[in-house]
Structures are given as structure tokens and as C-alpha cells.
């Protein structure tokens, strides 16, 4: 990687830079004529005589001549500004392209780092390098050559003019340049050093913030917040100190420049004045020189600030780039090569040594052979070198001496395209990617884009442009929208077959139940799969049928019925009898939607709701007014928490005295209505829902359906014959509420649903629906065990020749034992390496190597 910013710029954009300089030079004559024309217009066209003038063989009288000159002026204005516009866009684009190239190169280099290198660098440091630190480089690149060329040229022209007037004055004009040229770089050097220190310090801050976020549970559980606060505060002070130093120096440089620039006129007046008095220089020439000097200050200032920017940007570039050039970085072809060789044959270690850089992470002179198609256990506690041996076998790390071969192929000479496809490695610390379960399961099949989608018209144009840009910046041209899942590698001939295969493996590792539950909790879009929605509706009918038939069950649920009040649901659900079309809007937010507000006030039901809310508030106040806040009773059972109690006390007081002019205001009313909407009559038993009120709710519900739900696409009405996409699959299956006043109703009803789901063969599609479950950031919405199992299935789906598991399913429980047997069954004629610390488990495998302190101490 280019260590020097200018070399980097020149290497990748020499042609464009020359073009920029060329266009810049093109603007010189335009600007020159633009400045000359006004003079010509005033002196020649307005004040001149001896018309007509002959231009290109045409005769012009005074007025046409004036018009011609003015039109020329206008044209030049357009041309000069057009050129400027073009140049700016061109420079901007060049800068962005170079930035994209740089950033991608940096990212690719991160992927090329050897694994042990990541012990030395942290993501908290690398992220700001790739994102913010190089940002300034982009803006600079377009100017890198053009600005010094342009401003330098201007400076030379002006200087030449002064020297032509009088060499002595010329010398006076540049008299301060040597001093500036000497002092300023000296000062700037210090600023550069400080800038480097600042960048490094900010990186440490970023790293520490990142670490605090990762370890936030530790901070709280150890009450270490103060220590971390002090640590960060210390770093921030360091940052302040450095910046303050930088300011001081920067502004001193500015002061010095300004001073020097003002000093020169002092010499002009002194020397020029003397020369004029002595009669060696005309007064006119002196004035011209002073005017020229004024024009000199502009370019000089530009050049100086350019110099400062150059120093700043190149230091940033260097401080970034030096971190991406470790000596042992993988060759780029390791990532980009698409050649896959078949890894068949025995796995052999020949006198392999490896050092992870710390005690307990080394492997010393290990030689072993694992015949192809057998299973083998690597036994050893943590720190015995077991994990390192397995990582060496997977080609994840390279031996420092010795050779690891599979068949005739040396692992160190193979690329990711072979290692990553022919070998499956699942270690103890698995990573689950942010995305759906499906994304994670098929992650091991996404090596290269396989078939691009058909593109037409605008789409195709946009895509072509994207590809052209990628080529321009040496970014990859892989199509993200293509089909990436390599079905063939997984041994499947269609997406359905792949799904089925994944399901088989999920069952083998016993995680199908979890995915089924996730599937029940997930939402799905019926427009994608009509048949599935139809099936769910069928099951819903069956559930309803079973509930109607069996009195034991029917007492456990309240199904949604358009003409019946559902006491186990909240008043909001009962009134609206619909769900917001987007799951992001919760039921609590519905009353605040404008159309709902309008509806409520139109029908006058808001008054009723306020009364209900008021009665609830009154009851709450009465019940809880004598209860102390810290008893916990209020928070658990009341609609109102301790902090809101005084607020509602006030609202109730105002409402009670409403014979007076002012009742509760809008905000208070909204609060009261909010209380009312939360009421679940069967649970709260406050006695406010009288039969008349229930009938009224049903009435309002019908009007709401007519006037809001049917006219707006923001709601989906409860309808026994329609699949409701905003509800989970489970809620769609039951289409009602388990009664809150029956013990274990939820669980018992779930059992009924599960049996019907299994009877109707819906379990499988529900599991597939669970594939769309979003696992959260790095799989945070899954348990550690689930993450490991999903990673295991991901590895198995690859269908690799060699499977290496480390610290997976290593307990002696019956479940894990069964799982291991299942794995051996699945990997029957493949090479299977299994890392464990238990000798007992190891006896289940064909062959065993026992590792101790990096050496093979025993084998069977």
C-alpha cells in the first residue's frame, strides 16, 4: 500500500489530475479576456470614435459594436462559470472515487489480516480509520495538483510583472518568503506531530467507548462506572490539551503570515518612495507595483493554507495507512481467487509448530495423520493447544514451521475459496450475523453471486452505472441482489429442497422446537404465500370448531366476535376491533392517530371514555392513596404508577369541580382516555363496564369499522375469515384471547393449538416462517445455546469434506450424547474432527489424540 499520500494520488489518478490542470489552464485566457473586456467596452465602444469597426470582415457601427462586446462578455461569463462548475464536479467526483477506492482497499486489507493480528487491533480503532479519518482525504484529492498549479501560476505571473517594473521592488516583494518558507514548516512540523497524537488519542477513546458498550454488564455488576468515567475523562482532557496546543500553533502561524504580508508594503513604501524621490522610479510604476502586490497576497495565502492542509491530510493518511500494512498480510488472491480444489485424502500434520503469542496458545512439533472419512477426537483442556491444532487444521491460522496437508495440498497455499468451502469449522465462540435465521443458516453457501436478476430499462441502466463505478475504483463487481445460495454445494436442487435439508439438520441438532416457537411468534406477509395463509385460516377454523365442541376448552378462550364484547381484551381492542397495519404502531398509540381522534370526538365516545378513565382514576386513588410508594403494590397492579399519582389526583379534583367554567384540559383528557383504553374488564373487575356500556362499545366498534377501518389502509379489521398480517402467526391461529380469569388457560390452549397444527401438517411451514425471525444484533435475540446450534447447522449445510468442531456439544448429558451420535451419522463418510476436554466423550470417536501443553502426549 502506498505510504505516501501524493504517490497514492498520482498512481491512481495521474490522468485525471493532468486533465484537471489542463482545464484549469484553459480558464486562464477566459479569465484574462473577462477582465480585459470591460476596459474595451468603456474605452473603445463607449468613448471611442472612427466607427465602423471591422471584425471578421463585418462592419460594426457604435451601437452594434457595443452589443457585440457585451454579448461576448455575457458568453465569457457563462463559459468561465461553466468551466468552474464542471471542474468542481469533476474534482468532487474524483475525490469520492479515490476515497471509495481507499476505503475499500482498507476494508479488504482488514479481511487479509492473519487471525493472530486481531489480537493487536480492535474494531473500535479500525472503524474510525476507515470511516471518519480518511474523509478529509477525499476533499483534498481533487485539489492536490490543480490548486498549487493554478495559484502558483498566478503568483509567478504577478511576481514577473513586479520584477519587470523594478527588480529591486521585486526583491522587496519576495523578501519575506524565505523567512516564511523557513519558519512556517518548522512550526507546521510540530502541528503535524500533535495531529498524529490527536488521531491516536481519539482512536483510543473510540476503542474505550466501544469496549464499554460491549462490557456494559460488567461495568454495572462491578460498579466500575466511576473508573471508566475517569478513564474517558482523562482521555478527553488529553484531547483538549493536544487540540489547544494545535490551536496555539496554527493561529501563531496565521499571525506570522499576516504580519509578514503587511511587512512587505512597509518596504515598498520605504524603498519605492526613496526611488521615486531619487527619480529612479516613476510614481505610476510604484502604484502599479503596490496594486500588483495586493493581487499577490491572494495566491500566496491560498498556497500557504494549501500547504497546511497538505500537511494535515497527509499525516492523517499516513496514520491510517500504517495500520493496514502488517508484514504478514495474506495475499489478495486468498480472498479473490475463485479456484476450488477438491480436498480429499488424509489430513496430515508434519512437525507443525505454532505460537499464538501467549502461554497456552502454542503448538510444538505436532505430527499426526487423520485418515480421510474417519472421525477423530482432539482431547485436551483449554490451553493444551487443542483449539490451535483445530484452527491449523481448518487453515484459519498458519503454522510457523512444519506443514499441514490434506491429501497432497498444503493448506497454507490454498485460498479461501477452497478452505472456506471444503472445510467446516465451528469453534466455541461462534458469531451469528445480524439478520434473519435464514440468512445465518445459508451463510455458508454464499461464496459468489450465482445468477443475477433480470434487469430492464432504468434498473439495467442504474446497474450498469454501478458496475462502471466499481471498476473505476477497483471495487468488486459482485452483484448483491443476485442469488448467492449455492444450492448445488448443499446438495439441494431447489430452494424448497434446501429448506427441507436445513430443517432436517435443525431437527438433528434439536433446535427445531425453538424455531417452531419463533415461527409462531413471527409475522408473515400473506401476499408472499397465499396457500400458507389459507392453511392458517383452516387451522383457525379447526381450533374454533374444537373449542365449540369441547366445553372444557371453550371455557378457556374468548374468541373475537364482531357482536360480542371480549372481557379478556383491553377496551382499546374492543372498541377498535382492528389492528394497525404496521406492527410498529402499538395499540397504545392508536388513540393518538389523527383519524382515530377525529372519530372519537365525532361520535362523542371520547366523553364516555373520559368518564370511564375518571372512574378508574378515582378508584385507583381511593385504593392506593394509603399505600406507601415503596411497597411495590402500586407499580404492579395499578394503571398508574407512583409518580403519576399526584397528577391524577389533580385531574380528578378538577373534573369533580367541573361545575365551574374549566374542566380538565386536552392533555388531561388524553391521559384519562389512555387509562380507559387499558382496562381489561375480566382482569381489573372495577365494575365500570356495565352491560349498556358494552352494548355501546359494540355500536361504536361498528361505526369505527365503517368510517375509519374501511376507508383507511392504516388498519386491518378483526375478521375470522381473513389473515391479519400485523398479528403473529400464533394470534392468527387462535383468533381470540385466552381468558385471564381461568388458571393456565394460555398453556392449555397452546397445547390444543399445537396438536391441531401437528395434525394438519402446518408445523413445517411454521418452522419455515421462523426462518424469517430476525436474530437481533449479532444474534442477541437468541440464547447462547441457540446461537451455537444455528452455527452448527450453518456449518453442516455446507456439506464440506472436512468438519471440525471445537467445544460444541461437549457435555455428558444424554441430549448432547445423542447429538454427537447424530453428527457422526450425518458426517459418516467425511473427515470429522471433534475438540473436547473430556476423555470419556473422546472414546465415542474412531481415533483420539490427547494434547498436553502443545504436544501430542498420547494417541489411540
Amino acid at each position, binding site marked *: 500500500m502506498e505510504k505516501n499520500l501524493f504517490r497514492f494520488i498520482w498512481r491512481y489518478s495521474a490522468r485525471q489530475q493532468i486533465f484537471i490542470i489542463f482545464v484549469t489552464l484553459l480558464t486562464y485566457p477566459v479569465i484574462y479576456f473577462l477582465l480585459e473586456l470591460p476596459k474595451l467596452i468603456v474605452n473603445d465602444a463607449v468613448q471611442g470614435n472612427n466607427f465602423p469597426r471591422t471584425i471578421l470582415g463585418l462592419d460594426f457601427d457604435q451601437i452594434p459594436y457595443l452589443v457585440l462586446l457585451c454579448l461576448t462578455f455575457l458568453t465569457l461569463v457563462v463559459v468561465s462559470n461553466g468551466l468552474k462548475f464542471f471542474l468542481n464536479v469533476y474534482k468532487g467526483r474524483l475525490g469520492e472515487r479515490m476515497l471509495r477506492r481507499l476505503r475499500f482497499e482498507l476494508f479488504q486489507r482488514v479481511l487479509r489480516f492473519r487471525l493472530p493480528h486481531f489480537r493487536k487491533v480492535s474494531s473500535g480503532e479500525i472503524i474510525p480509520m476507515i470511516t471518519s479519518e480518511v474523509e478529509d482525504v477525499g476533499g483534498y484529492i481533487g485539489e492536490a495538483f490543480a490548486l498549487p498549479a493554478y495559484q502558483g501560476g498566478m503568483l509567478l505571473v504577478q511576481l514577473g510583472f513586479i520584477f519587470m517594473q523594478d527588480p529591486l521592488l521585486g526583491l522587496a516583494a519576495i523578501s519575506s518568503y524565505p523567512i516564511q518558507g523557513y519558519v512556517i514548516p518548522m512550526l507546521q512540523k510540530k502541528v503535524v506531530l500533535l495531529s498524529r497524537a490527536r488521531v491516536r488519542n481519539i482512536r483510543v477513546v473510540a476503542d474505550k467507548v466501544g469496549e464499554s458498550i460491549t462490557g456494559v454488564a460488567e461495568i454495572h455488576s462491578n460498579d466500575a462506572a466511576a473508573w471508566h468515567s475517569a478513564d474517558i475523562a482523562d482521555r478527553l482532557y488529553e484531547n483538549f490539551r493536544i487540540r489547544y496546543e494545535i490551536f496555539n500553533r496554527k493561529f501563531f502561524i496565521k499571525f506570522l503570515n499576516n504580519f509578514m504580508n503587511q511587512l512587505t508594503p512597509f518596504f515598498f513604501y520605504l524603498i519605492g518612495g526613496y526611488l521615486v524621490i531619487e527619480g529612479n522610479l516613476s510614481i505610476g510604476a510604484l502604484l502599479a507595483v503596490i496594486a500588483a502586490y495586493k493581487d499577490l497576497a491572494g495566491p500566496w495565502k491560498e498556497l500557504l493554507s494549501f500547504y497546511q492542509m497538505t500537511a494535515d491530510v497527509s499525516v492523517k493518511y499516513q496514520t491510517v495507512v500504517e495500520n493496514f500494512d502488517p508484514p504478514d498480510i495474506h495475499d489478495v488472491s486468498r480472498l479473490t481467487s475463485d479456484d476450488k480444489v477438491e480436498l480429499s485424502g488424509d489430513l496430515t500434520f508434519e512437525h507443525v509448530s505454532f505460537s499464538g503469542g501467549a502461554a497456552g496458545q502454542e503448538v510444538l512439533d505436532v505430527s499426526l495423520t487423520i485418515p480421510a472419512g474417519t472421525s477423530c477426537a482432539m482431547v485436551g483442556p483449554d490451553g493444551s493447544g487443542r483449539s490451535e491444532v483445530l484452527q491449523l487444521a481448518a487453515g484459519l491460522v498458519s503454522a510457523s514451521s512444519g506443514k499441514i496437508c490434506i491429501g497432497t495440498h498444503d493448506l497454507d497455499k490454498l485460498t479461501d475459496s477452497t478452505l472456506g468451502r471444503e472445510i467446516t469449522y465451528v469453534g466455541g465462540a461462534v458469531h451469528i450475523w445480524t439478520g434473519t435465521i435464514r440468512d445465518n443458516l445459508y451463510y455458508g453457501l454464499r461464496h459468489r453471486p450465482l445468477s443475477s436478476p433480470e434487469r430492464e430499462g432504468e434498473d439495467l441502466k442504474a446497474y450498469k452505472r454501478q458496475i462502471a463505478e466499481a471498476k473505476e475504483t477497483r471495487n468488486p463487481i459482485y452483484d448483491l441482489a443476485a442469488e448467492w445460495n449455492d444450492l448445488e454445494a448443499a446438495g439441494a436442487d431447489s430452494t424448497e429442497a434446501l429448506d427441507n435439508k436445513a430443517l432436517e439438520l435443525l431437527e438433528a441438532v434439536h433446535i427445531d422446537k425453538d424455531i417452531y416457537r419463533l415461527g409462531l411468534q413471527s409475522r408473515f406477509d400473506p401476499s408472499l404465500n397465499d396457500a400458507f395463509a389459507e392453511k392458517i385460516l383452516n387451522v383457525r377454523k379447526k381450533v374454533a370448531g374444537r373449542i365449540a365442541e369441547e366445553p372444557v376448552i371453550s*371455557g378457556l378462550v374468548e374468541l373475537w366476535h364482531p357482536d360480542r364484547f371480549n372481557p379478556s381484551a383491553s377496551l382499546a381492542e374492543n372498541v377498535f376491533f382492528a389492528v394497525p397495519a404496521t406492527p410498529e404502531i402499538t395499540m397504545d398509540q392508536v388513540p393518538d392517530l389523527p383519524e382515530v381522534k377525529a372519530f372519537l370526538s365525532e361520535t362523542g365516545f371520547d366523553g364516555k371514555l373520559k368518564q370511564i378513565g375518571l372512574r378508574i382514576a378515582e378508584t385507583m386513588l381511593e*385504593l392506593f392513596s394509603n399505600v406507601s410508594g415503596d411497597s411495590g*403494590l402500586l407499580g404492579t397492579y395499578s394503571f398508574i404508577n407512583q409518580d403519576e399519582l399526584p397528577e391524577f389526583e389533580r385531574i380528578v379534583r378538577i373534573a369533580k369541580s367541573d361545575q365551574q367554567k374549566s374542566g380538565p384540559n386536552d392533555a388531561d383528557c388524553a391521559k384519562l382516555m389512555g387509562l380507559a383504553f387499558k382496562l381489561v374488564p375480566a382482569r381489573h*373487575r372495577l*365494575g365500570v363496564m356495565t352491560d349498556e356500556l358494552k352494548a355501546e362499545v359494540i355500536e361504536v366498534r361498528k361505526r369505527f369499522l365503517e368510517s375509519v377501518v374501511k376507508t383507511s389502509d392504516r388498519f386491518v379489521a378483526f375478521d375470522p375469515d381473513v389473515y391479519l398480517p400485523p398479528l403473529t402467526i400464533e394470534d392468527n391461529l387462535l383468533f381470540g384471547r385466552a381468558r385471564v380469569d*381461568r388458571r393456565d388457560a394460555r398453556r392449555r390452549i397452546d397445547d390444543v393449538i399445537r396438536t391441531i397444527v401437528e395434525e394438519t401438517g402446518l408445523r413445517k411451514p411454521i418452522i419455515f416462517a421462523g426462518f424469517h425471525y430476525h436474530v437481533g444484533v449479532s444474534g442477541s435475540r437468541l440464547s447462547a445455546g441457540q446461537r451455537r446450534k444455528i452455527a452448527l447447522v450453518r456449518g453442516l449445510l455446507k456439506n464440506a469434506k472436512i468438519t471440525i468442531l471445537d467445544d460444541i456439544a461437549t457435555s455428558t448429558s444424554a441430549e448432547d450424547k445423542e447429538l454427537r451420535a447424530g453428527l457422526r451419522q450425518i458426517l459418516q463418510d467425511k473427515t470429522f474432527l471433534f475438540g473436547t476436554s473430556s476423555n470419556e466423550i473422546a472414546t465415542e470417536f474412531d481415533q483420539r489424540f490427547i494434547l498436553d501443553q502443545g504436544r501430542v502426549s498420547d494417541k489411540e
Partner: protein
Amino acid sequence: MALETEVEALRKVSLFRGIDETKLRLLAFISDRTEYREGERLCSQGEEGDSAFIILSGSANVMVHTDEGEKKVAEVAENSIVGEISILCDVPRTATLVAANDMDVLTVSKDDFLKLLKEFPDISLEVMRTLATRLERTTRDLADARQSVS
């Protein structure tokens, strides 16, 4: 049925006799109102007790394990509280409760009951009084039983 009717029922429970109405309303509000059909279990012998039951209507059979299977030893009727022992001292349920007919029950969870006792000491006093009465009776029964044995 609303809180008012529950309070009416609670007032008839001997344990809550001396307690004023607002507190009974609070007790009713924080408990869960549950229905049981004939034959459903309220709790099973041996499991951990985390709630007490106040029977509003209906009755339940008290069953214990014996060598010949479960045997009915008593019946608890309307307006009585059962299961309060196990929420006061951590002992497993000493008997199984099975609904003898359709029942309406208020279930008070252990945590809430303890919070309520802490909050209103006069309830604790009442509970103590009731328990003391029972203890006294049990002691007398025991003495009688000993006498008849010897």
C-alpha cells in the same frame, strides 16, 4: 362480578373480619379472580405454594396422598381462605385442592399478600389472631388425642 361483590364476600371470611373496607377492596383488586370448573385442581400436594385462595362461591375437596391413592379428608366451602399457611412459611402444599363444583376464587399471590401485611399491620394482627386461635384449638385437640391414647 365487580370489586364490590368480592369485598362483600371477603368480609365474610373470618380472617378479614376486622379489616376496613378500603383495604379489602385493595386486597380484592390485587388478587386474581379465577373460575374453576368441577374437577379442576387449585393446587397439588407437594408443590411449592405461591398463593392463597379465597373461595367466593362453590366448594373444594381437600385431598391427601395415602397408600390407597388420593383420599378426601375435608371440604372447604364458600367464604373461607385456604393455602395461607404455605405463603406465610415456606412449606410445600400439604394437600391437594380439587373443585367440588364450579368455583369462583380470588387468588392472592404470596408476594402481594406479604406486601399487604407489611403495609397494613392491622391485617397482620388479624392474621396472627386467627392463627393463634387455630393453634390453640390444635393444641387442645392434640391434648385430647393424647389423653385418649393413654
